[in-house]
């Protein structure tokens, strides 16, 4: 390594070290072939995966920032002229990596049903009412401490065609980028005590029971807004860097 006029570290002869991201523990993520969730059958790779080393394309990623969103994107209850039906809730938490470091400035996107369990989507046919005052979509950027906060409505359960009398537990879909291609994750947030959880093949596709509970938000009486809204904490843990590599914290 040498240092350029601008004070940048310039690798010599194309040789340099990059951070390595830890492999998820076995059973942390669901197997792509999960027969209880029938649609996985024709949509999972059957050939062995090829190991992809973490090089420049993998340790970088889109830093999708402020330009994309406004304050209103994080409040799903004020996107229309009137207020949506249902129980108002605050959903908040911290995005951090598996080494405990907060992940700042990262895009968090959510989508969900309305209070009646109906998505606003052309292919959705569940005969529950749409709510003219609720789209069920939100966006936020984490702050310097990795924190995000949405105001929304308690989503409903809905039937689906996986098996006879199948119902999804209430959930909110979350999509995150982190700061590297390796950290990208799409998940679902569930609610504590939901009687449908033990019956749901998507929730139960995660083999590790402890990992599974990472998807259940925690009710927080301390964070409710008295006379106004209940609150749920949902912390999200992305892949961290392996400890062997020396690293500077993100500025």
């Amino acid at each position, binding site marked *: 390594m040498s240092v350029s006029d601008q004070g940048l570290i310039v690798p010599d002869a194309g040789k340099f*070290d990059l951070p390595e991201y830890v492999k998820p523990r076995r059973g942390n993520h*669901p197997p792509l072939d999960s027969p209880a969730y029938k649609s996985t059958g*024709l949509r999972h790779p059957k050939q062995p995966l090829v190991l992809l080393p973490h090089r420049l394309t993998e340790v970088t990623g*889109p830093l999708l920032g402020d330009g994309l969103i406004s304050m209103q994107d994080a409040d799903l209850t004020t996107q229309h002229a009137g207020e949506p039906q249902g129980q108002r809730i605050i959903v908040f938490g911290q995005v951090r990596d*598996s080494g405990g470091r907060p992940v700042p400035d990262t895009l968090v996107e959510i*989508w969900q049903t309305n209070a009646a369990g109906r998505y606003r989507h052309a292919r959705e046919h569940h005969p529950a009412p749409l709510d003219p005052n609720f789209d069920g979509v939100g966006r936020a950027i984490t702050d310097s401490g990795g924190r995000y906060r949405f105001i929304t409505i308690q989503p409903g359960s809905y039937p689906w065609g996986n098996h006879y009398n199948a119902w999804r537990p209430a959930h909110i879909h979350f999509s995150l980028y982190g700061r590297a291609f390796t950290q990208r994750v799409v998940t679902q947030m569930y609610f504590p005590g939901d009687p449908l959880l033990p019956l749901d093949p998507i929730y139960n596709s995660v083999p590790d029971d402890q990992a599974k509970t990472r*998807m259940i938000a925690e009710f927080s009486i301390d964070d409710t807004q008295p006379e106004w809204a209940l609150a749920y904490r949902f912390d999200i843990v992305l892949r961290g860097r392996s400890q062997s590599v020396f690293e500077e914290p993100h500025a």
Partner: protein
Amino acid sequence: MSELLTPSQTVGPYFSMRLPWPEGPYVVAADRPGAVTIYGRLIDGAGDPIPDGLIETWQADPAGRFAHPDDPRGPVPDGDLGFRGFGRCATGHDGTWKIVTLKPGPLPFGDGRTEAPHLDVSVFSRGMLDRSVTRIYFPDEDEANAADPVLQTVPAARRHTLIARPAEDGYLRFDIRMQGDDETVFFDL
């Protein structure tokens, strides 16, 4: 000691409520000099199109650099600041998707070798509990592809599934087959 990760779950059938945005497929405007359109179909194990899929791409700029703090070569020089490198496109009813972008440059691998120009790709859909990761390489890079340290680890008989094909109008075609005879190579990231 590292913490358990938040597990992945499927995007489900209704992600298009939120995730796509109008300029998503346009990493650059279609009329930008050097813009290339990469398109293809996302196909399931029965040979049927996957109409509720989402394709995301991530890549270096034409100089092979990233505007990102973990690129050890430092900030991207001025001219390329407008290049985001990220594309996102939902599949249509016939499973087709497209990305309009600039061809990335070759990249140093870090050990003195060079990676051929490529895009990293994430594939999501209903029925996929986690993303599947693949790469798009370019058909006019025979020499660079042959020397690419990642392609070299792919069984020779399957490498062609990672290389886009020239198509009409100067487009490039890249079909993604989840299963079957020409199953696309997917990576363990």
